[in-house]
């Protein structure tokens, strides 16, 4: 069905525009990664240093993004916030990917009761609105950075388990896997040498697209006061603090939001690019 719309002479190649967008995604993500790694060097000043004489100062040469209610430099805080956003985004997706792959493999290899048990468990997790479940988990676990990673990772786990199960089920009945079985290869060897490498493509597509969702979730949790705690700079936390001053100092609300948008856009473009590369059937989306 999906193949119909993409058939035709122009469907077999990715349009130049798509390359440009994917390249932009790679560039944004690489830049963010670099900023996160080199934050102490890239930030003009210490993000924690308060300056009572420069409170809520508008953008200027000294403070390109202005200052907040404590006179802290917003540019430096945005730069340091990259560490939290990227760290939590990538960390929680890595957690979902690893555990989801293991659960998906377990469900796909033991069809029957175990499959039903694991997948109904994933359905249960999927039933809760993501932010609500993450909020409740943070409320009971406490606002530590590792708990943010755990809460977001758990919330997005079902998507990865489902993707892994579907991919493995498709591959395990293919001829080359059955040939390996006929040759007497052990289950584990067959899984790691033949099934896993072929199942990784859809998982990678899912992972690259999920980082942006995880970044948004971290920002939302910090915005609501249960994620990263002040004074540690995080984009969501900065937005939350800006609400009391945004009418007199709109820059306090604008720049952290732009940072979230650019990061999410970058990972979305990168994810679309990886999907185009690995799964040509979805190019039309």
């Amino acid at each position, binding site marked *: *069905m*999906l193949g*119909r*719309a993409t*058939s035709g002479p122009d469907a077999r190649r990715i349009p130049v*525009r798509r390359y440009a*967008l994917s390249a932009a995604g790679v560039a944004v993500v690489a830049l963010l990664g670099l900023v996160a790694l080199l934050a102490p060097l890239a930030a003009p000043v210490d993000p924690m240093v308060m300056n009572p004489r420069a409170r809520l100062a508008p953008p200027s040469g000294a403070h390109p993004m202005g200052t907040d209610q404590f006179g802290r430099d917003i540019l430096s805080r945005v730069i340091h916030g990259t560490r939290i956003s990227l760290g939590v985004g990538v960390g929680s997706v890595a957690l979902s990917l690893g555990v989801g792959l293991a659960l998906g493999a377990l469900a796909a290899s033991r069809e029957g009761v175990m499959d039903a048990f694991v997948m*109904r*468990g994933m*359905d*249960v*997790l*999927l*039933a*809760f*609105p*993501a*932010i*609500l*479940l993450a*909020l*409740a*988990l943070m*409320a*009971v*676990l406490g606002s530590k950075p590792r708990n943010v990673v755990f809460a977001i990772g758990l919330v997005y786990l079902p998507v990865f388990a489902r993707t892994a199960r579907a991919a493995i089920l498709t591959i395990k009945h293919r001829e080359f896997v059955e040939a390996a079985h006929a040759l007497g290869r052990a289950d584990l060897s067959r899984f790691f040498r033949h099934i896993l490498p072929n199942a990784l493509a859809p998982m990678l597509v899912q992972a690259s697209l999920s980082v*942006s969702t995880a970044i*948004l979730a971290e*920002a*939302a949790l910090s*915005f*609501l*006061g*249960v994620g990263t705690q002040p004074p540690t700079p995080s984009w969501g936390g900065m*937005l939350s603090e*800006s*609400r009391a001053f*945004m*009418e007199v100092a*709109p820059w306090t*609300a*604008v720049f*952290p*939001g732009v940072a*979230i*948008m*650019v990061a*999410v*856009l970058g990972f*979305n*473009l990168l994810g679309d690019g990886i999907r185009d590369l690995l799964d040509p059937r979805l190019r*039309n*989306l």
Partner: protein
Amino acid sequence: MLRFLTQRLLILVPIVLGVSMLSFLLLYLIPGDVVDILMGQESGDPERLAELRRLFGIDRSLPVRYLEWLGEVVRGNLGRSFVTRRSVLAEILTAFPVTLQLTAASLLVALVVGVPLGVFAAVRRGRGSSLGISVLVLLALSVPSFWLGILLILFASLYLNWFPPQGLVLLWIQPVEAFKQLLLPSLALGLALGAMIMRMTRSCILEVLAQDYVRTARAKGLAEWLVIGNHALRNALIPVVTLVGLQFGYLLGGAIVIEEIFSLPGMGRLVLRSIAQRDFPLVQGALLLAGTGVVLLNLCVDLLYVAIDPRMRRR
């Protein structure tokens, strides 16, 4: 149809039970127990604490407590709020209509923006206007709804000098006031879903337009708008309905943040207040009802497929 419905209902039973188990267990992940939370900093005498634990049934085993709790839930008793002492169900029923009207308004915004733009982008594929829409979609998918909400408030208050009404305003009691109150939050919440719907509509219409029956319709000399409206859109809508159903939970979750920004007294604010006050029976009740609600809504989506596509009845 009856068989289809029975099958779907049977699948739901373990999921709803799982939702109830997780909601119940969450309360027991908290360090300490309910009595510790209620006593706060006070150090009561051990006999009184033991008495309270007996009263709350904490001295019994976890499965027994779960079954007792489930029995109460089935009878409509979700417990009492630690803070207000009102029943959890009453608290939730007061707040829920606000969230319901916000999510419904956001869904309306998403559909009104997403479906026509999706059709437009599909019909004008490859032209400048279609590219413009694609860029807008990418931006809409990347803007956090809560930031958009803040920007809308900033724009409305600073440049338009306009402040939406605050407090509990219900659509069926004060329609005009409710419209004013819902306009900005539903835009903030519905835009990203609108972008998703637009993408899905565009790709589905493109797929349907390549089908033989569309060529036949055109060959009959049917007007293009009839081909799109009667043949393409109706068939393209099935995946869009799935998307809307799957994303309803996203809207409910998003409503939590949007209600906080726009000071709407809905479920989101209730949950946030309960979390801040460590009022766990309320958090538990909200989780249980939200989870069960999403599961039931997915059932409704399944039934809606059958209404849109009669072929599904035979599956």
